């Protein structure tokens, strides 16, 4: 039922995931970082759905459902944090936001 070989789908997921990871690591705009994280989440979601289909089991989709919920909440809270941060620090530059510097 799966139209393309599973490894290809998985490789595609990996590609998206690592693009997202690279985005987290190379960008200093915190908004782009959040978007990159969403990319990574999506890549993982697709992996789960792929396995769900490949293993003939819907539990993978259940997991994706919950992940989507958590991701929604996460972005809500994360963006709230960004706003709060921006309000106190007047920046969204991650290099400037180093309150935990030891």
């Amino acid at each position, binding site marked *: 039922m799966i139209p393309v070989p599973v490894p290809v789908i*998985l490789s*595609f997921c990996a590609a998206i995931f690592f693009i997202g990871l690279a985005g987290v690591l190379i*960008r200093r*705009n915190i908004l782009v970082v959040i978007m990159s994280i969403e990319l990574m989440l999506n890549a993982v979601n697709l992996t789960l759905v792929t396995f769900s289909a490949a293993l003939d*089991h819907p539990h993978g989709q259940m997991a994706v459902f919950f992940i*989507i919920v958590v991701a929604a909440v996460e972005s809500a809270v994360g963006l709230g944090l960004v706003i709060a941060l921006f309000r106190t620090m*007047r*920046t969204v*530059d991650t*290099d400037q936001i180093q309150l935990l510097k030891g």
Partner: protein
Amino acid sequence: MSPEAIFFYLFAVMAVAFSLVTVLKRNPAVGAFSLVLVFFSFAGIYAILGAHLVAALQVVVYAGAIMVLLIFVIMLLNADSPSLDMDRTHWTLRALSLAGCATLFAFFVWAFQNGSLFPQPGQFPPQRVAELGGSTKLISYLMFTEYLYPFEVTSALILAGIVGSVTLAKRQKVKRGKA
């Protein structure tokens, strides 16, 4: 090659291309819009893989709710801040990160090609899903039986998220002088 496969490759190329735009484009607003397109591509792939509910949720939640939120924030911050025009991280970190990502990606691709990932078939082959009334019905059934508690907890999580984000984003009565 089946039409599904063709569509899959189409969506996959789109997703990769737009995610690259998302990550690389200076302007976050452009990035956000490319991200919407990535989400739509993902939704298409979900549909191709038979996960129709997930595809719907992807469109509604990601491409709808989350993106709207993001764009709002971008516009909110963009309005009074020139500092959104960001540079990138330190070049060593960037180079090392890209090298690391590339290496790991290569490793995964290699692993997926050579690994044996499917020990046994599952309980719900497509015929059985069709007998049960389609994947949406099956998922919904599972959600209210086996996954009831997590489902209910999810509502609490969302509630906490709402309260949290409101509290955070609310303009506080900050004492002057504190940066």
